[in-house]
């Protein structure tokens, strides 16, 4: 039987929680894999419509520039790293203050990402680039919007965990929830790697 799970393993620092976490985190991992299937199909739809679904509307190279996706990428990448630091604080320090600090930094970076994305969408809508324009734009908003919704859900989850840290402290339940949030957050960054490559960089290249 496997004794390790994705994400940070508490291992010897908290053997009791580690043992319980194993099946819980593995179950969450299965959910994440099915979530990836959802994203893959949105990618496939996007790939198809970006070639033959333009309906005379704007093409990928018309609507993208590199600046805002680059900043968004950096925000999400750094937030993945800071969540890693939060995981280490959770595992080794048992230090609520340090953990809270890293979680808040992660929240700020994630919120910055969502704010920039909303700003992009509003700007596009202002230029008449709405989902109603063409199948291509529909699939663009569906794909990038679904990712944005996931990040927003992650942010809400983060806030709830910060509240739980204050109310319950570093209990076994809270630790396991944070471990699942960590792999959720890292997985969203993996999806974003595909989005910035296949949507933005491919789009500008065409």
């Amino acid at each position, binding site marked *: 039987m496997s004794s*390790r799970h994705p994400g940070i393993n508490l291992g010897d620092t908290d053997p009791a929680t580690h043992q319980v976490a194993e099946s819980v985190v*593995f179950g969450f991992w299965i959910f994440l894999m099915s979530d990836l299937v959802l994203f893959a199909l949105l990618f*496939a739809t996007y790939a198809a419509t970006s070639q033959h679904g333009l309906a005379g509307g704007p093409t990928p190279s018309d609507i993208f520039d590199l600046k805002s996706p680059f900043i968004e990428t950096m925000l999400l990448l750094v937030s993945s790293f800071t969540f890693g630091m939060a995981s280490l604080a959770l595992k080794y320090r048992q230090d609520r203050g340090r953990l809270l600090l890293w979680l808040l930094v992660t929240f700020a970076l994630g919120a910055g990402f969502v704010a920039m994305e909303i700003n992009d969408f509003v700007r596009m809508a202002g230029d008449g680039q709405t989902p109603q324009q063409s199948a291509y734009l529909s699939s663009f908003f569906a794909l990038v919007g679904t990712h944005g919704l996931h990040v927003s859900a992650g942010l809400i989850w983060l806030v709830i965990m910060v509240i739980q840290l204050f109310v319950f402290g570093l209990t076994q339940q809270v630790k396991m929830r944070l471990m699942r949030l960590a792999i959720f957050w890292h997985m969203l960054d993996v999806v974003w790697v595909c989005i910035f490559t296949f949507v933005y960089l491919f789009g*500008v290249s065409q």
Partner: protein
Amino acid sequence: MSHQGLPISEDETLKGEFRDYCIGGVLALLLTMLAFALVAWNIFESWNRLISLSLLAIIQVIVHFRYFLHIDLRKSHRDELQLILFTGLILFLMAGGTVWILWNLHFRML
């Protein structure tokens, strides 16, 4: 004394795991910058560039899995790895198949 089921060879320390996150962060940063640089400075022709970008993305995804999600080739990680590989197969069939069929259809309809 190691905990039941945890191999002794897996010496997890704060220092070691901190180093892992740093390696992952730096590699991901470099790969991201490289990908954006290819496009920003118009390096490579069309197809070569798209292939390079795809390769960079695949490498970066592997870096994220290895250093942020702690998935590696150790025997105790095989369950998760198998799940990833199976999901990868499903993604390849569904996403790749969709793109293939729609391209084919597009080609025949012209």
